[in-house]
């Protein structure tokens, strides 16, 4: 039996373009050896799980290298290139260093929650992987409430952050976790509503269904829904608390944020979880907006999951790019941005999409006409709304910073003696 399994995997691995082939093969195999019925589920489930967990393990390690290298190049320096060719062993060295470090726990920390927090922070990231479509019918669990499952799993992160912040019993950590929770909660609404727009268009909540929709109508969702993409990208980069919204561990303000007290592998888990979440989110974006494993004619030649991983790293580069260059918002600007800009824009987008879907169903025109029309309409409307919001809500800065005045010689206006310093005397404790 084992030999048969191996032959499947080795000789026509090229054909393993989707999991279904594999599970059919196993079913036939177990059928011949008339094993128990439930074994099929267990084996294919196990295979899928091993596949995903190894992908995550690999991703967590490779991404450390990718991020440091790319940001290094952005800062006109080389990035890690000492260990191994092009510094590829650097993440391995980091992992080993973190593992052998002693795990400290503050005396007054409540142990149970302290250890549970990093696990609870990593689990949602991995859970999301189960729903993502890797190939034509290569999905570990194609739930028909896929999108909702994504939102549910990512909303657990807020709880994990609170556990980390509260249990490490340290003033900075508490600040960091409170800030992050406020941000996560306020950015969840734009995320839900913008994904709703996508689901409305595709008609189903099953991720595989959305990809098939994009394949059927021969258009990436980002073309149909640019506004939803814009809102989702910004809100999710705030949810992941990456720059420009990484106030959680704003090292220049409160050092370290909620994972100040963690060290050793617990901190390693937090750090890896952040990377895994980033990859998972870029996977979601590439599924919902960039057509997942489908790429016009390409997926006949190249296996679907290769295109998919290519897109994942494409979107991941966007995250690394913004992280490398943009300065950080202040917490109240961030929350105001979420409530004043993101949520209304998302609701506007939802209304537009609902109207369009209604028109599409009622009028009965052929898709050939409607899809390009939607692309054009939605494109212009997206730009129009963003511009309108900028005009309407942007703080009254002059568009271009007031140029400085230049004096060729000193000129000091004779000012009255300032308010008496004595008034200040009472409070001054400099």
């Amino acid at each position, binding site marked *: 039996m084992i030999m048969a399994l191996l032959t499947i995997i080795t000789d026509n691995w090229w054909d393993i373009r989707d999991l279904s082939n594999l599970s059919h093969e196993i079913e036939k195999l177990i059928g011949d050896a008339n094993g128990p*019925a439930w074994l099929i589920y267990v084996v294919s489930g196990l295979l899928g799980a091993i596949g995903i967990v190894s992908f995550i393990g690999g991703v967590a390690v490779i991404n450390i290298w990718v991020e440091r290298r790319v940001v290094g190049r952005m800062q006109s320096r080389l990035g890690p290139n000492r260990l191994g060719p092009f510094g590829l062993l650097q993440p391995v060295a980091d992992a080993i260093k973190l593992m052998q470090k002693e795990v400290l726990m503050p005396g007054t920390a409540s142990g149970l929650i302290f250890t549970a927090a990093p696990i609870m922070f990593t689990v949602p990231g991995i859970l999301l992987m189960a729903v993502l479509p890797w190939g034509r019918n290569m999905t570990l669990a194609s*739930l028909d409430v896929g999108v909702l499952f994504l939102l549910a799993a990512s909303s657990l992160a807020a709880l994990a952050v609170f556990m980390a912040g509260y249990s490490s019993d340290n003033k900075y950590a508490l600040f960091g976790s409170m800030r992050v*929770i406020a941000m996560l*909660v306020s950015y969840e609404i734009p995320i839900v509503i913008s994904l709703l727009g996508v689901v409305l268009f595709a008609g189903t909540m099953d991720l595989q269904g959305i990809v098939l929709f994009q394949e059927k109508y021969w258009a990436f969702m980002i073309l149909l829904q640019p506004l939803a993409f814009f809102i989702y990208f910004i809100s999710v980069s705030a949810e992941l608390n990456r720059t420009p919204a990484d106030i959680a561990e704003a090292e220049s303000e409160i050092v370290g944020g909620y994972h100040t007290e963690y060290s050793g592998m617990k901190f390693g888990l937090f750090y890896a979880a952040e990377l895994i979440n980033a990859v998972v989110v870029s996977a979601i974006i590439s599924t919902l907006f960039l057509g997942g494993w489908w790429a016009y004619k390409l997926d006949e030649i190249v296996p679907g999951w290769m295109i998919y991983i290519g897109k994942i790293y494409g979107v991941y580069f966007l995250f690394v790019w913004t992280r490398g260059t943009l300065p950080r918002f202040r917490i109240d600007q961030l929350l105001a941005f979420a409530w004043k800009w993101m949520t209304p824009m998302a609701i506007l987008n939802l209304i537009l999409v609902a109207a369009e879907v209604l028109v599409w169903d009622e009028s009965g025109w052929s898709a050939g006409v409607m899809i390009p029309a939607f692309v054009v309409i939605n494109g212009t409307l997206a730009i129009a709304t963003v511009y309108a919001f900028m005009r309407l809500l942007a703080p009254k800065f002059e568009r271009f910073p007031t140029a400085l005045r230049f004096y060729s010689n000193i000129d000091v206006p004779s000012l009255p003696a300032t308010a008496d310093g004595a008034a200040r005397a009472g409070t001054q404790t400099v």
Partner: protein
Amino acid sequence: MINDTGIVVAFYILAATTVGCALMVAFVRELVQAVLFLALAFVGIAGIYIVLSADFVAVVQVLIYAGAVAVLMTFAVMLTPAADRKNSSTAFWAPAAVLAGLVLVIIVFVSYDTNWQIANRPQFGATAAALGEALLKPYVVPFEVASVLLMTAMVGAIVLTKEEEGEDA
């Protein structure tokens, strides 16, 4: 369908964890741990929904309860002054125990009294679509009323907190 043993085993595990967490919520010393056990209980209930293959309700349960209500509870706990963060035992534990016992008796009696039949209906299809249809076709009025109610609740909350700020400023 995996034959029944798998489902039954899963159900018992989930039921045990949910009830265990619910009990822990009552008995654990630290108030914050109580809130976290509450969140775990919510996730347990979502598991039971999955066993009943009501996937939409399970996912919504996780999203709404474990994601939002639990965080709300943590904020409530954080705002209580640190002094009474302990899950202190109040004097009313006696009457509470009696009441709980009473409810337990009623449940046990009802569960023995009714004669359960295995509903020989076909396996549930995609529940999400069915729910959507039900909400918007036959039950559209209660759906709208519920949404209006929620809106008023939210506006009420904002007005309350607004006033409070007014005093401080």
